[in-house]
């Protein structure tokens, strides 16, 4: 990312930070939610949605809070970027989430899974770079 020099580049940098913050909070959110539903799994019956036992867990509330924060960032990003580009850039979360699953939930990342994550990262980069070029022309 280029250093901030002019108002135009400040405006240009915002979507990237927005996307990054959004993806990080989504990651935090899903990790919290997973911890929450794991804790309450024995109570969680498919047909008992009206009782909402999962909402009892503090992890679930933390997850919801993170999700709302990520949503605020998402709205800021969406105002600036076309939906198609924003939606694909935020796919960077598919890199963060398995990493977080590994770090915080003790789930394993096999080498094949790591390759898949790498390809996702490549795809996000291809789109981000394409958007940079459009932006430079404007």
């Amino acid at each position, binding site marked *: 990312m280029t250093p901030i020099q002019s108002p135009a580049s400040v405006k240009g940098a915002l979507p990237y930070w927005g996307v990054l913050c959004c993806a990080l909070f989504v990651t935090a959110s899903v990790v919290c939610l997973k911890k929450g539903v794991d804790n309450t799994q024995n109570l969680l019956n498919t047909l008992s949605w009206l009782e909402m036992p999962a909402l009892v867990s503090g992890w679930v509330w933390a997850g919801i809070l993170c999700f709302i924060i990520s949503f605020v960032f998402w709205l800021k990003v969406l105002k600036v970027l*076309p*939906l198609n580009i924003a939606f694909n850039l935020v*796919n960077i979360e598919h890199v963060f989430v398995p990493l977080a*699953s590994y770090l915080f939930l003790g789930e394993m990342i096999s080498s094949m*899974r790591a390759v*898949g994550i790498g390809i*996702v990262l490549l*795809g996000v980069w291809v789109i981000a770079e*394409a958007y940079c070029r459009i932006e430079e022309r404007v």
Partner: protein
Amino acid sequence: MTSGFFVLVILSQALVVGGQIFLKHALNSTVDGSETSTWKRAAPFAYGLGLMTLWFFLWLELLSRVELSYLYPFDALGPLFMAFGASMMLKEKMTPRLWCGVLLIVVGLLIVGASQ
């Protein structure tokens, strides 16, 4: 995995894409400065939020059944749905480069999904 599980996963993706399209539609009509009334903007925003809320609870249910890192790759369908949805409903341009990125992401996510 049962076919019911896949139906739910696809439904959740459809909810995401529909919700996002409504949200973007609402924000678009804010940005272009036209004389759209606040209520006209609020309606698609509310629809978007509604669909996202439905998606959230459906996703929470799916999450309670399987591992997070197993469930997440099914979002691979999302970018594809979104590519068609956004270009049809919002008239957004799909450049070859964008398709390229979308396909890379989808392939990557499918590999993650197929991995153990």
